[in-house]
Structure formats: structure tokens, C-alpha cells
């Protein structure tokens, strides 16, 4: 299996690829982790990962700056149903648009918007940064061997507001409700960072590698 991690210039690429290497090692499966920097390289992938350390606008610009990458990504994920994992901003990019530093269009794969975390309680600090427990709302293979209420690492100031709540599989609480995991067909997005979430993060990645949508 070939896993492609897209490098568009601002993500924590090494951190992500190394956690996938660890997950593959633990699975004892023949998984090759590839860092992808062109549309051509992306074409051979069986799993696609879009990591996210960065500002929304910068990420979308980074992706669109790579010749035909965006088109190929659409062909692969929407056309060929290749399993896709978007992490943090990589998840937020699935929305129609974001309001981070002005309004910017996303992929529009999962209808919704990206909005600032609501600060109902003046006591909360933004970004939402650190380990927070997730509530699993619906059963899915991606949560195999992960308990409801397990802690995952979050770091973000914006929230993915999915228009269709059926796509929200997990939430966390910070101020109000925060979307933790969205799933639509072969597309998974996580607001938390599985690559930084130690044992259960690696478990989540293993589940993604074994998942057949």
C-alpha cells in the first residue's frame, strides 16, 4: 500500500510521516509512506493524507500552487474514492469556505463553514491548545480500540461547522461544541492531531490504514 502525505509547504510533514511509519510498523503491513510534492506522485497513492499546520489561506494557496495537484486530488478522492484523511487545517479545507484572515474558499467536499471558536466563557484561551477528551457520537471503524472520552491533542482557533450534522462522528467541548471528526464516504477529517496523540493517535492512524470505505 502506498500512503501519500501531501507537502504543500507549511505543514508539520515530518511529524506526520513519522507517525504513519510507526503505525505501519506496528501493523506489520507493507505500507510505504511517501511525501508528495507533485500531481504525478499523487496518482499512484492508495491512501491520501493532508496534514495541517498553517493558516487556511496559506494552505489552499500552497496546494493550488502545485501544478494540477488540486485537480488530481479531486479526481482521486471524489472520482476514484481513494481513502482520504485531512488533519486539522487539512480537515477545515474540506469545507466550502473559512473566515480565517478574510474569507477563503475551501474544497467544498463536505458542506459547511470554518468559523472562529465561540468564546461564550471569557475564561477560555484561544487557540484551543492541548489534550481534550472526545465524545464518539457514532460507531465507525476509525474508532476501533479507542474508548469514548479518550484524550487527543488539539491546537486550533477555528471550528468546522458541518451543515449536515450526520457527517459529525465525534465532538469535543471547549466553550461550546467543537467538531472533532467528520466522515463522508471515503473522506475523514480530524480537528485533533492523531500524529501527536501518542498511543491512541497511532491507533487512529492504524485504523485509517486498515479502513476500507
Amino acid at each position, binding site marked *: 500500500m502506498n500512503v501519500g502525505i501531501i507537502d504543500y*509547504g*507549511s*505543514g*508539520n*510533514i*515530518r*511529524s506526520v510521516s*513519522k*507517525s504513519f511509519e*510507526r503505525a505501519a510498523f506496528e501493523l506489520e503491513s507493507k505500507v510505504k509512506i511517501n511525501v508528495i510534492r507533485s500531481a504525478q506522485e499523487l496518482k499512484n497513492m492508495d491512501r491520501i493524507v493532508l496534514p495541517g*499546520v*498553517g*493558516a487556511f489561506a*496559506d494552505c489552499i494557496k500552497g496546494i493550488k500552487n502545485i501544478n494540477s495537484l488540486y485537480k488530481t486530488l479531486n479526481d482521486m478522492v471524489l472520482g476514484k474514492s481513494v481513502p482520504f484523511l485531512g488533519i486539522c*487545517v487539512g480537515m477545515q479545507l474540506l469545507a466550502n469556505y473559512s473566515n480565517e*484572515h478574510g474569507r477563503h474558499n475551501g474544497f467544498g467536499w463536505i458542506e459547511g463553514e470554518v468559523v472562529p471558536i465561540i468564546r461564550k466563557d471569557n475564561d477560555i*484561551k*484561544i*487557540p*484551543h*491548545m*492541548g*489534550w*481534550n*477528551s472526545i465524545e464518539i457520537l457514532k460507531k465507525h471503524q476509525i474508532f476501533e480500540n479507542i474508548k469514548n472520552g479518550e*484524550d487527543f*491533542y*488539539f*491546537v*486550533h*482557533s477555528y471550528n468546522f461547522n458541518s451543515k449536515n450534522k450526520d457527517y459529525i462522528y465525534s465532538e469535543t*467541548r*471547549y466553550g461550546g461544541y467543537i467538531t472533532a471528526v467528520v466522515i463522508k464516504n471515503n473522506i475523514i477529517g480530524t480537528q485533533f*492531531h492523531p*500524529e*501527536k*496523540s*501518542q*498511543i491512541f*493517535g*497511532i491507533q487512529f492512524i492504524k485504523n485509517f490504514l486498515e479502513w476500507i470505505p
Partner: protein
Amino acid sequence: MLKVRIIPCLDVKDGRVVKGINFINLKDAGDPVEQAKVYDKQGADELCFLDITASSDKRNIILDVVSKTAEQCFMPLTVGGGVRSIEDIRNLLMAGADKVGINTSAVSNPELVRESSVKFGSQCIVVAIDAKKEKGDWIVYTHGGREPTGIKALEWAKFMAKSGAGELLVTSMDRDGTGKGFDLELLRNITDLVDIPVIASGGVGILKHLVDGVKIGKASAVLAASIFHFGKFTIKNARDEMEKNGIPVR
């Protein structure tokens, strides 16, 4: 519920972990790669790696040591020391860092904080403030505590938060390495002033100090070095003490 983070800090000089008192008299505390392994096993919430002489030596950070250390971490890793440009930040992320700490360059070039937070997102930019009390005010120091800037720490904290920092790492130079506890007054002043998370640093000697940093100083995270490096306490000891005092921990 969001948990309070416990962060061991590796102060690195010439590729070795060191620990001093008030930023001087450095004592060897081991190999950063080995230390990172131990803290990952102990379940530290994050790890902080600071190349403490990169700025004063006017050199770039030791990327190879960073990358070897990062290989051992499946928790968030903040790396600081001699970060001067967008390119430096990119290189650190490529070496396995998740966030970068900026201290000296934030003072000499505040625009770097603004620019990098737009490029990499605020969550990636940790502004480190080394502060020392002088005539009733806390003053910001740079170059690993060697250079006074004359800038007031409270005003600086506010300005950095406004400039796009995702979090502040506040170290009391008066307390660092003394084991007397955080400068709670400094902490509380800053946490009340800014809306971003603040990491308390400098002075932890006993576990109660960590509790005080959260309860009195209102810190979102607590950082310590000596108490963990020399095996006095484990991360679990710290976590248990905090839990006993009603602080949410992992």
C-alpha cells in the same frame, strides 16, 4: 474537558541537555534523544527543546539533534533557539517540530511573529519571554538571558499576543533553577492580560509549585526541567499531585 499540560523542557547546549541556576552555572543533564524517549514513555503532554546558546553564539539551531530528538516524540514538540526567519521555521517543521519558540528575534524583528503566524498559523508560534524583575517592573531579556532590552514584560506579552503568537512561554529569570516556585505575580499579571494560553516556567522545585502555577498563576500549562531530568519526580508524580488538587490532567 481540556487538560492542563505538563511539559518537560530540554535546555540544550552543544548537543547536551543542561540545567543552570538563573540561566548560568550549567550542569549536564544528559542526552536529549534519550531524555525525549523517557518523557514520551512517561506520557508527557508535550516536550520543549530549547537550544539556549544559539542566539548568543549567533548560529543556527542544531537541526540534526532536533530531528533525532523529534524521532522519539509522538507528542507535540516545541523547538526554540536562534529562530530568525520563515526559512528557519520551515526547517524546524521539516525536522519534526510542531511549534517553534521565538524569543530574541521577536524583539529584534517583531514582524517575524506576525508574518510567521499568518504563514504557519498562530498555533505554531510560541513567543518565549524571559523576564527579570527590576525596580518593580519585569524586564524582557534576550540572547538566553544575556541581554536586557528595557522592554516591560507585561506590555510585551500583550503586544506579542496581538501580533499573532499562539501561546506565550513565560520564564522568570529570578526563579529559574532556584526551586523556589514560579513567579506567580508575573504569571498572573500576564494570564489576566492576554487571551492566549500561557506556559509557566522557571523555578519549580516541588510538585506543589506546579499546582500553584495553575491555581494562582492561571497558567494553561506548566513547564519544568530539573525536577524531571534528575529523576526527582516523574511526569506521573506531577499528574497525580495536580489531580489531587482538582486540576484536570490527562
